[in-house]
């Protein structure tokens, strides 16, 4: 059955016709061509399809598109600034060599957006736990941790400086 839903995707109000059986991952990929949303298992095991729904990182492959009605969705395509500038998290992933094949990268970046967005300071071990829902076979997580840790610290310092 087809249904029309309304949601805000990467800052833009969007009306989209969905099959009520389809996942949010399929909606984002097939209907909106937001192909940063990757599918590595389709059962919520690998984390490659992670997007933010109302600020919370979820596996979009096991989240029905229908549930996104009225919600705010953010994918990696929505992270760059108005003139195409990279977010500090994306920059950190590039400079820390946290990217190899790149297939798990967008999902982990979205979890990092949630982590960094909390404005909290985390230890390395806490970050290890926070990203443990993402599988990566290329990096051994070492440089991914470096990148997320750096982005967390940069954001935390920025917030500290902002306080009187």
């Amino acid at each position, binding site marked *: 059955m087809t249904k029309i839903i309304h949601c805000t995707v990467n800052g833009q109000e969007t009306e989209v016709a969905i099959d009520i059986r389809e996942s949010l991952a399929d909606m984002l990929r097939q209907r909106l061509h937001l192909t940063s949303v990757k599918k590595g298992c389709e059962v919520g095991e690998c984390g490659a399809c992670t997007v933010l729904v109302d600020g919370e990182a979820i596996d979009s492959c096991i989240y029905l598109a229908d549930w996104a009605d009225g919600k705010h969705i953010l994918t990696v395509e929505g992270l760059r600034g108005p003139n195409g500038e990279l977010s500090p998290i994306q920059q950190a992933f590039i400079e820390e060599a946290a*990217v190899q094949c790149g297939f798990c990268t967008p999902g982990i970046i979205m979890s990092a957006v949630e982590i960094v967005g909390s404005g909290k300071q985390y230890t390395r071990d806490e970050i290890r736990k926070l990203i443990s829902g993402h599988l990566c076979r290329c990096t051994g997580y070492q440089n991914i941790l470096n990148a997320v840790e750096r982005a967390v610290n940069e954001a935390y310092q920025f917030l500290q400086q902002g306080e009187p």
Partner: protein
Amino acid sequence: MAIGKSMNRVDAYEKVTGQAQYTDDFFEGEMLTAKVLHSTIANGWVKKIDTSEAEKLPGVVKIVTCFDVPDIQFPTPGHPWSTEEAHQDVSDRKLLNQRVRLYGDDIAAVVALDSVAASRALKAIRVEYEEYLPLLSPEEAMAEGAPLMHEEYPGNILKHHTLIEGDYEKAASEDGLLFVEGDFQTQIVQHCHIEPPISYAYMKKDRITVVSSTQIPHIVRRVVGQALGIPWGHIRVIKPYIGGGFGNKQEVLYEPLNAFLSMQVGGRCVKLELTREETFICTRTRHAISFHETTGVRPDGRLVARRVKIVSNQGGYASHGHAIAANAANEFRHLYQADGALEVDVSTVYTSMASAGAMRAYGIPQAAFALESHMDDIALRLGMDPIELRKKNMMKLGYVDPGTGIACYSSGLEECIDRGMAYIHWAEKRKQYQNQTGPIRRGVGMSIFSYKTGVYPISLETASCRMVLNQDGTMQLQMGATEIGQGADTVFTQMAADSVGFLPENVHIVSFQDTDVTPFDTGAYASRQTYVSGMALKKTAGIFRERILDYASYMLQKPADSMDIRDSWIVCRETGEQLLGMDALAMESFYSLDNSVHITAEATNHCKSNTFAFGACFAEIEVDIPLGKIKVLDIINIHDSGVLINPKLAEAQVHGGMSMGLGYALGEQLLYDKKGKPLNNNFLDYKLQTSLDTPELHVDFVQTVDPSAPFGNKALGEPPAIPVAPAIRNALLHATGVAVNSLPLNPQKLVEAFTENGLLNGGALHV
């Protein structure tokens, strides 16, 4: 100089912004979905398939079964083709198979409007089988009366050979030798690239295009041609970005079927993507290999008489054939040289399990586990430090492999070991952790390896490159070699910048391969590309430079040999004075009314050399004896991969290999039930390393300059996965005195081993 600098990856921007396109990210208008019906028995025959109910379902476009496909058996491995029949790969499967040789064999396929219709159709197909006994180990497969997996191979033995150096019996008769024996067994693991295998195919006029997530686009073209019996020039293969391969995509598994299905529906576009569950059981795995080693050693630690028996579990199809077990055998010859004899008896045996194929380091992680564990056992028996034993026997500079002629042109192995010892405080901790008691104990262990760079002289090594000057003085760089996540495009950019004299930002590499336009290269495998394809790049750069300087000579009226190219400028060779910008030269060369030349260069290099890379792993672990749990406290890999083109990417490559090695050591294993059905073919039950399972990974390099290499560089991609498991096993031996000789070293196994060895008694600590 760009080489030696840690420049950022050239593809990182696209990958962090979602712009990088993988096979599933293209939309070609109508795309039909194909799904494969897999056998639900491990061994037998399909007697009958009834598709009548499935065909009635809405959305079903076409169903083909194993009774409908061409009667052509084809080879699947990503080897360079051999024009000599004796050296050709084994052709032992069809597009769909009536003879079922593993649980999950491909027996029918559905093309439908969407995946829901395709899945429903699969469920509605009725299959009748004649079932045979599943053969779940080489022993079962070689037993008398076992059903033959392939009629052409009696005893289910795909191939057997013996590697002989010297006279074992004579060497073994030397007085005063100590003999040490050991049995070692490795498990089945899977590559677990995060992007599942995927392709799509469509026809235009009489040509078929296949877009695929592959490491080897030019080989895919050849195999599709062979499998379908169509001229190779009618096939075009495109390789976009790929989400990891690790050897599993060095094989042509579903592209031929995908092309066939498109042809069956009038050339309409058909996409075929495997699920994760299918990926585990229907693609490739790492061979489970058993080793029996007997070594006669002098009291001073010199190896004299070595005998090894290797039996490799191939699974249902030959895949890379005997090549992987043969490579494992070679490691015994390469890493240590006996002062006497070495005899290795090697068999590859068909069973009815997942077919094993290429996986990062091609048989060497298995060999290293057996060989390096055995070395520690020998050292223990001799009362000698394991490192002293290794240094006495390991490959030295100048070694020449008597079988292949591959020579050791450079070796930093000894320094790798020395750095590892210093890092982990070897001498101190080996002493400190002796004679421990209590439930928690610590140990340090290590292992070493050697690894070849490419496949010469076993197979052809050929590579090509094309350079094209753009109007703005930048260049387009096209490689037949492929980027599969390892960073190939970035290091080729660095090599091209230095070899031509351009700034790296003025080199635009074309990441995708398209067999209609991409120069020929066999692809990403065997840690070959920086070496073999690097040679082609260097050769092409020489031609390209010469053509640019000739044009500069025409423009500036100076002899070409008085000038050079540096930082994208034509400069005076002597003084370095900048004479002409590359942009000005390029514009003139394109649009001159007197002398318009499109400056390009293309060359093939037939590589006829090989060289050894080396390395070591040192690990410190803590063992919880009642829990049977190993915690890695500290770990370092030290590599001699020659000159590093990009140190930061090299380090990242080592991280990934170490992580794969940790999974191999501690948890990963594909399990089967008694009927040959896989039990844990998903990411929930197959224990892939997560960030929580992975300790801090430390890396160091000893940069030798290899004289045979284009830039002093040697193999790096695969080696990091090799030494980790034996280093941890040896640390376990040091910590507990218990030698565990099979992988993985998981809690169930360790508790059993500790109980057998008297450390535990009914779960309680005994000593």
